[in-house]
């Protein structure tokens, strides 16, 4: 890891004095530390040669990395961190936050319009329906995470309960759909009364509310035992619950299909009309030329609608007593109780509401992928959603949306850096570095902006004038 993000060590004497010797010494020390950190793991690679473990050596790579770090540190010491530089005036809020706030009246509708028009722009940009596939897929991915971010935002951002097992509800939603839609008894039941293909065509629309409700129920079940916990303990227990659910999904082979997962889950239909090339398919009925992209674009609008429902509901709930109770809980739980708020119910309602949206998203995930397996519900996903919420600014909807787009877009871009192969050789696979950079980004974001892009809070009611509440006053909750 790079030590050069730390504060300048070995502070040099007052302004005006020569800084070069100090800077050189500091850079040299940094180099030594970097060598110590990178030497063992980068300098040597354990390789299996003829069945036995041996070592391969990469001194050049270490030398280059240490060289970059030393040079970077030296340059920073002489410029940005130089004691001769006048200290920068501390601005009240960051330019990013101010920028987002300043354009926010226009920003939200513009973002919405862009989201709605995205499939058309994508088609126009790439020059054809099938060519836009990649972009639409990316749009769906981003919107799924926007929705998950908004769902978790209720729990973490509004109610201040740190939930590290959110992926469990995503999994519950996905498996609810996967299991119900592929269930033979359910299919037979509907086949007997409503026709052979009924369940395959309608499963998603029936299961969507069921998945949400079921995930919400799980939110309550898992929320109940952790009511008394706060802070890091709550986070750890929710993490444990998330892992337990994943391990059960892996090991309960009879029910969940185990690690192999559940395949050939019925695809989404246009409200009962399947996206097939056949006579009763979507394209034929609407007089279009068949294209597999129709289904994908439809899915894009489904997740957009789901995300918007999440956002709309959250905005409404914030202005209702339940939403204010969530925020009050985040601010001061004891004061809440002194005012007659049953904090048990307040917490459970937050868990359940957040989980419900996670369940909807999970159901959507299953129908989009047509396949679910425990692999898709690892702790990394929880961490990613949490990172989105925190980067966005806890409690801010627009911030979370921007953060999801930046994070998922950024991670996706790493897949496309094929040109790097020409620099680093064919063995270089940029997508391997995705999680590495993600982890690094999480640390960097926390150091750079621990309160996220939008840290100010919008009041839910006002008498004369709506004034944003500065982030420094808003508490982060007990859990």
């Amino acid at each position, binding site marked *: 890891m790079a030590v050069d993000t730390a504060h300048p060590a070995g502070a040099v004497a007052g302004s005006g004095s020569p800084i070069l010797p100090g800077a050189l010494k500091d850079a040299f020390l940094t180099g030594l530390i970097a060598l110590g950190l990178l030497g063992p793991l980068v300098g040597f690679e354990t390789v299996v040669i003829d069945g036995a473990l041996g070592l391969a050596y990469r001194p050049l790579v270490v030398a280059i990395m240490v060289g970059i770090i030393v040079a970077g540190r030296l340059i920073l010491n002489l410029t940005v961190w130089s004691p001769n530089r006048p200290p920068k005036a501390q601005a009240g809020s960051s330019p990013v936050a101010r920028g987002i706030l300043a354009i926010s009246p226009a920003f939200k509708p513009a973002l919405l319009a862009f989201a709605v028009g995205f499939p058309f722009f994508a088609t126009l940009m790439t020059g054809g329906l099938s060519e836009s596939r990649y972009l639409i897929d990316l749009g769906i991915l981003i919107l799924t995470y926007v929705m998950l971010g908004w769902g978790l935002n209720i729990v973490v951002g509004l109610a201040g309960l740190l939930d590290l097992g959110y992926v469990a509800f995503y999994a519950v939603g996905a498996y609810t759909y996967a299991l119900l839609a592929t269930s033979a008894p359910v299919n037979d039941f509907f086949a007997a009364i409503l026709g052979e293909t009924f369940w395959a065509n309608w499963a998603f629309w029936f299961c969507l509310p069921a998945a949400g409700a079921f995930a919400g129920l799980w939110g309550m079940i898992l929320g109940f035992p952790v009511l008394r916990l706060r802070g890091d303990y709550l986070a750890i227990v929710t993490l444990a619950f998330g892992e*337990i659910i994943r391990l059960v999904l892996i090991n309960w082979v009879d029910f969940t299909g185990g690690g192999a997962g559940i395949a050939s889950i019925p695809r989404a239909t246009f409200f009962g009309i399947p996206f097939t090339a056949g006579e009763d398919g979507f394209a034929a009925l609407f007089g279009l030329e068949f294209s597999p992209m129709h289904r994908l674009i439809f899915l894009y609008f489904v997740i957009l609608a789901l995300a918007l429902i999440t956002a709309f509901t959250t905005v409404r709930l914030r202005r209702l007593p339940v939403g204010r109770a969530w925020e009050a809980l985040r601010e001061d739980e004891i004061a809440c109780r002194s005012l007659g708020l049953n904090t048990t119910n307040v917490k459970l309602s937050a868990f359940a509401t957040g989980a419900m949206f996670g369940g909807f998203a999970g159901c959507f995930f299953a129908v989009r992928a047509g396949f679910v397996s425990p692999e898709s519900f690892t702790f990394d996903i929880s961490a990613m959603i949490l990172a989105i919420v925190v980067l966005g600014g806890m409690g801010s909807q627009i911030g979370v949306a921007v953060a999801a787009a930046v994070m998922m877009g950024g991670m996706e871009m790493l897949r496309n850096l094929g040109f790097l192969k020409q620099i680093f050789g064919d063995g270089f696979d940029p997508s391997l570095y995705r999680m590495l950079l993600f982890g690094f980004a999480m640390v960097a974001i926390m150091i750079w902006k621990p309160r996220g892009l939008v840290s100010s809070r919008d009041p839910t009611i006002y008498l004369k004038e709506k004034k944003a509440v500065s982030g420094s006053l808003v508490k982060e909750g007990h859990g």
Partner: protein
Amino acid sequence: MDVFVQQLINGLTLGSIYGLIAIGYTMVFGIIGMVNFAHGDVFMVSSFIALICFLLVTTVMGITSIFLALAIVLVVAMFFTSLMNWAIERVAYRPLRGSFRLAPMISAIGMSIFLANFVQVSQGPRNKPVPPMVTDVIVIMEREGYQVTLAWKQIIIMVLTSVLLFGFWYLVQKTSLGRAQRAVEQDRKMAALLGINVDHTISLTFVIGAALAAVAGTMYLMYYGVANFADGFVPGVKAFTAAVLGGIGSLPGAVLGGLLIGLIEVFWSAYFSIEYKDVAAFSILAITLIFLPQGLLGRPEVEKV
């Protein structure tokens, strides 16, 4: 009975390893009140450092005495792991001290992901098997063809754990470093006003935690003969469970918790189902935190109104 005794030995060995990792959790939680999420991955990295060092010592330097080799590996792994944890604290946690409360935890999660993937990228995703070391065993009992054995490596692990526990307990209870540590734990501001170098004390805590994790990592490598980049998370969570079960902040508690977790895991696998052994560990974690948050040797907390 035979199986029972054998599992007891295995459980205590595994528990010693968990206990060593748990001390790192418990000390860091005690002093800065944060769950050092990356600690499990620090342990994993240490086992890689130990692996690389072991290969260097045996194949390149040609040292044939296994005990000498192990001693060198242990010292080298402790040094480099400590350096790493020192740097992690410096870069990822110290700037966040006094920032909003979730920040260090999220930073630690990021660091955990970073470390696991750093090893995956630099060392490859596959299991790294080492030739078995210290293969001698002592047969304790033999009945109807079933041997209850105590391996030398198990003895090494248990003895080393006891010695280290005693050493660090002495360090924390009897030396000025320990006093400084406990003072910072109680009241950081006051400790600073009284002339304790808080940064220094916290750094040292991380260094000690990492050194013990490195011992655990080396022992783990010797015991199981394999290293993998993904082997940080689950042992990490189990060690954290051990720390919580023993009472977070308590050194003997961490080791007691580690032994209990090790025993539970081994017996669960032997008598119930090996598939669900991690579920058992996670469940104990949840149950302990919910019903016995102060742990076995910790102090209960009274809510202040």
